[in-house]
């Protein structure tokens, strides 16, 4: 008994390792193409964040290349992602549509006021109904749509500089949207 008990820490560690390994290999799933790729973005109707009486539908977001970003204030990764979205909003003409997912409207408004609002429009999905349509598993997730609403690319987890450079920017360039070289305000 006493000798065996010395192996208990090793056993606990192996268990942690197994969880860590599987949790880690889930990352691969983030890279996997979604079943929605090359399919049209689903029809939806959802209230706008700033004016809940107003309903935004699929038709409202068509017409130009669009990034649909699923986010929430309870999601810490979204906070990390935010600066990059702000940069994209400032430097490109891509339309940014936010889907505020399973969240509180007041908190969401406060968040955008605090950290800046990169979105051209934000819709709310308090119960995750739209999320189910989109096959969302969590936040953040980002879809790239062309002007006709076809899904070209889906990113599960944060959009960071690397994802922008390697995945989003090249695809957007083909749609005619390029990063503007903004003059540094205030100069050097």
């Amino acid at each position, binding site marked *: 008994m006493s000798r065996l008990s*010395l192996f208990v820490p*090793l056993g606990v560690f192996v268990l942690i*390792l197994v969880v860590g390994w599987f*949790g880690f290999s889930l990352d691969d799933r983030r890279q996997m193409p979604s079943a929605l790729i090359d399919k049209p973005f689903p029809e939806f109707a959802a209230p706008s964040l700033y004016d809940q009486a107003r309903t935004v539908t699929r038709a409202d977001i068509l017409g130009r290349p669009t990034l649909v970003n699923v986010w929430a204030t309870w999601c810490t990764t979204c*906070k990390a992602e935010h*600066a990059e979205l702000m940069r994209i909003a400032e430097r490109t003409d891509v339309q940014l549509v936010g889907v505020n997912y399973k969240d509180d409207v007041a908190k969401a408004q*406060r968040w955008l006021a605090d950290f800046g609002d990169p979105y051209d429009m934000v819709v709310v999905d308090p119960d995750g109904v739209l999320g189910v349509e989109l096959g969302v598993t969590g936040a953040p997730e980002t879809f790239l749509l062309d002007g006709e609403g076809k899904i070209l690319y889906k990113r599960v*987890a944060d959009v960071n500089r690397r994802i922008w450079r390697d995945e989003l920017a090249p695809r957007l360039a083909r749609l005619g949207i390029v990063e503007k070289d903004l003059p540094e*305000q*205030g100069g050097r």
Partner: protein
Amino acid sequence: MNMLPEFGQISLACAACLALAAAVTGLGGNGARGELLRRSTVSMVVGQFVFSTVAFAILVTAFVNDDFSVEYVANNSNSLLPWYYKISAAWGGHEGSFLLWIVIMTLWMVAVVVRRQNYPQRFANRVLGILSLLNLGFLSFAFFTSNPFTRLIPMTPADGADLNPLLQDFGLIVHPPLLYVGYVGLAVPFAFAVAALLENRLDAAWSRWSRPWTNVAWAALTLGIALGSWWAYYELGWGGWWFWDPVENASFMPWLAATALIHSLAVTEKRGTFKSWTLLLAIAAFSLSLLGAFIVRSGVLTSVHAFAVDPERGSYILAFLALVVGGSLTLYALRGGGVRAAVGYQLMSREFFMLINNVILVVSLAVVLWGTLAPIGYEVLTGSRISIGVPFFNMFFVPLMLALAAAVSLVPVLNWKRTRWAAIKPAFAYALPLAVVGGGLTLYFTEPRLVMVALALMLAAWIVVTHANDIWKRVRARSSMPLSYAGMTIAHLGFAMSVIGVAVTSTQSIEADRRMAPGDQTELGTAAVQFVGMQQVRGPNYVADQGNFIVTPAGGSPYSLKPEKRRYLARGSIMTEAAINPGFMSDTYISLGEPLGDGAWAVRLHFKPLVRWVWLGCLLMALGGVMAVADKRYRRLRARQDAQVREVHESAAGQVST
């Protein structure tokens, strides 16, 4: 063309080669003709330090010179950045911070070299070998998966992407280095434990050797965590100081283990019990700091702190973790058994209270570990994500920490082995009622009045009373107080201070969200706050809207607070810069929300009583830990005759067998 970054890369490779060689000579070179190998181990350890430092200096030079042909510099710096942030940006991202980690690792190794005369030669050699092996793992990780010297040629950008504005702060300059001193420092007691297992010398000497190293690493970790918490408080603009964020937890877990280890080492040294348990804690503390590195750097969990996700890095760290922790725990399972000692102690003894302390700390550790890893496990099993929030942690931590406080308060009256009731009686008969009255009186001033706050105040007061009484008795009897004992007392008082700070600030704070236009006046607790107006200000690399508020506390003189809403030019990101009037008894904290039109702003006002006590308590704890190291006992380790004699016997035995 500037070739310096290539030299940096070569330096890293040289350090890795030396680490490999030192690991071989350190762990293998203990045979008959070991003397030359032993000396070469020492010089190769110093070599690792020199080459790592050169690499780090080159990286800092690249930042200072705005060498944007280096990818890491281009991603984390900008020509507009002030010079001090250019230097600290060197550890603002994954690659550079890991290089800093390595430099600190080699610093610890050099420290072991400096003190090697205090330990038997074979043992010191083993320790250096184990540390070199660990460093080899770190260096190859940096070299193969996180090279900070990768170039962007010919696609060199004209300017850098800038350091994340959240990190452009004094906090970032000091927080990571201190934290890493703590994380990596735990490698030393780990190496001592593994060396002791390898050498089969699980005696009190081993624990005495480990204690100063553990204390310094623990003190640095304490300061690093406190600094991080302070930084989050003033920089994130939410007035919070602890978020149970996975990365905070990653630093908290090794801290809990190290705290348990410090206490358990004391028992092992003084009384010769808990041996097996102490070994396990030494292994666990460092393993948890590696697990923390895995959590932060692999992208398995994401948070504000997280670095860029890269699957290659995650699998590397996981493999390294499996080797280091799996290997040492296997060694423990095979060798750690023969060290049980039959030394008895009674219920009312320091040993038993150390056991209580260890149980509480390890249960707390398990809670944090569960709260951090369960979301991953849940995702593995069900495919969907959950988030374990603050209520989960608070539910466990409030009672656990209160129980710990009760145990701490009895420490001054307890003796080793057994304590007569007459010695303990005053703690219950006089100190406890005094603390209850004192805590109860303080409770009168709280709003809302909560049972848990009352308990926390009373228990903290109990700690203060028993410890103060102990000091008073010693001063009156003119009995000497060793530095290590004084250190313990100060650390325990620091713990009481933190308990009071946490209990009061988390329940008694006032938070108000107001719409305010210039000229408007509002109230925050008993203070009057007037919004004078807004103005535009320019920083070195940002422009800001700066609000001017005049705060007039009841019966005090007015002062002004100027919170800012900053827009950083390079990334266009918006940051909220809170304005804080710090005070020993309370902070007044104002941050700007959104502009509401017509010159009005949403303004967030906080009144935070005793919030500084949380960090001041940590400061006292760290001070206590360092004071204990300065105790004469550890300085006089040198020239321990018996160790020397044993050494001679051992090498003689070695000669016969080889």
